[in-house]
């Protein structure tokens, strides 16, 4: 599912400026499109994680970057392994149904 920037801001309760910072820091990398980037469910959930880290968990800005980097590595590794084991079933997929 594709989410517009306006909808994304609404659903994450973020303000425009914060979102821009998060994108600059590469914490979020939405699909670049004209005139505005397009977001996915994964981006939405990731924004939730960043909010948890900064809010409840009290992680500072540097910490967030480090954690996200490690989380991404874990998922790469998990994906690589589950692909090999052969029981990988993606939970959601953004692509449309094949024709």
């Amino acid at each position, binding site marked *: 599912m594709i989410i517009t920037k306006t909808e994304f801001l609404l659903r994450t309760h973020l303000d425009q400026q914060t979102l821009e910072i998060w994108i600059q820091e590469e914490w979020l*990398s939405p*699909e670049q*499109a*004209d005139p505005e980037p397009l977001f*996915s*469910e*994964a*981006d*939405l*959930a*990731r924004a*939730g*994680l960043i909010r*948890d880290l900064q809010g*409840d*968990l*009290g992680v500072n800005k540097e910490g967030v970057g480090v*954690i*996200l*980097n490690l*989380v*991404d*590595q*874990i*998922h*790469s*590794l*998990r*994906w*690589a*392994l*589950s*692909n*090999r084991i052969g029981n*990988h079933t*993606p*939970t*959601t*997929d*953004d*692509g*449309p149904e*094949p*024709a």
Partner: protein
Amino acid sequence: MKDPYEILGVAKTATPDEIRSAYRKLAKKLHPDLNPGDKSAEEKFKQVAGAYDLLSDTEKRRRFDAGEIDATGAERQHERYYKDYAEAASGRRYQSASSGFDDFAQQDDFLAELLRRREQQARRAPGADRSYELEVDFLDAVNGATRRITLPDGSSLDVTIPPGIEEGQVLRLRGKGAPSRGEGPPGDALVAITIRPHRFFKREGDDITLELPITISEAVLGGKVKVPTTTGAVMATVPKGSNTGTTLRLKGKGVPKRGGGHGDELVKLKVMVPSEPNPELETFLSGWTPGSSYDPRRDMQS
């Protein structure tokens, strides 16, 4: 549910600061996104978060301490966690190339082979498919056409509509979808076709149907009439004594079939009496008797 103080591991007399720091300590350990493979961590986190929701709210805590409410239902509902999306197609963009296991992949063993292959796979994975909708004119759908779609990013896409396309059919344009994130081929564009209805043509499978008004004299005497088809007008013969509902079949004037050949055009005649009063016709008909054996309503008599 257990006692929220017990869950957070704090005394009943704990200050809000103590509660917050106890929660943070547990959340750092149990947050589902920091434990993507551990179901039990997620369950525990729900309890911890629920307990914190209760105790961090002064009013709720007061009422709980006073015994006015219990901890039932305080468990925090499942939110969306990033881990549930991270390995889906849309989350995969965040996966780091290989920094987490590059050293394994350099080695020459089973795991190395396995990780190397995955690397290649990821690099060669095609881009995502993109869906579009295109509304075409009835005649374009029958005869085929080329139409241009303007995409949200300003570029455009030429879509060749094959003759005889049907409502709801989806055209797949290879390589016209999103580009691959690695070195793979781009995805496909999927164009769903809807067809605008025509003023007088209708489609039934491979046949075209059409209702053709004719005059009384054409109906009685027969004759040549001009009939529109999807490829231009043709002359057709109305047989003598035609009626409303008589159907002419124009062979091969229907929709092109997939395997070659065409359907037919079915022309349903409709006899029209002049809508303005016509003295000549009235005079003529008052002098005309159809004969005693002729009764168009004969079949209705019981």
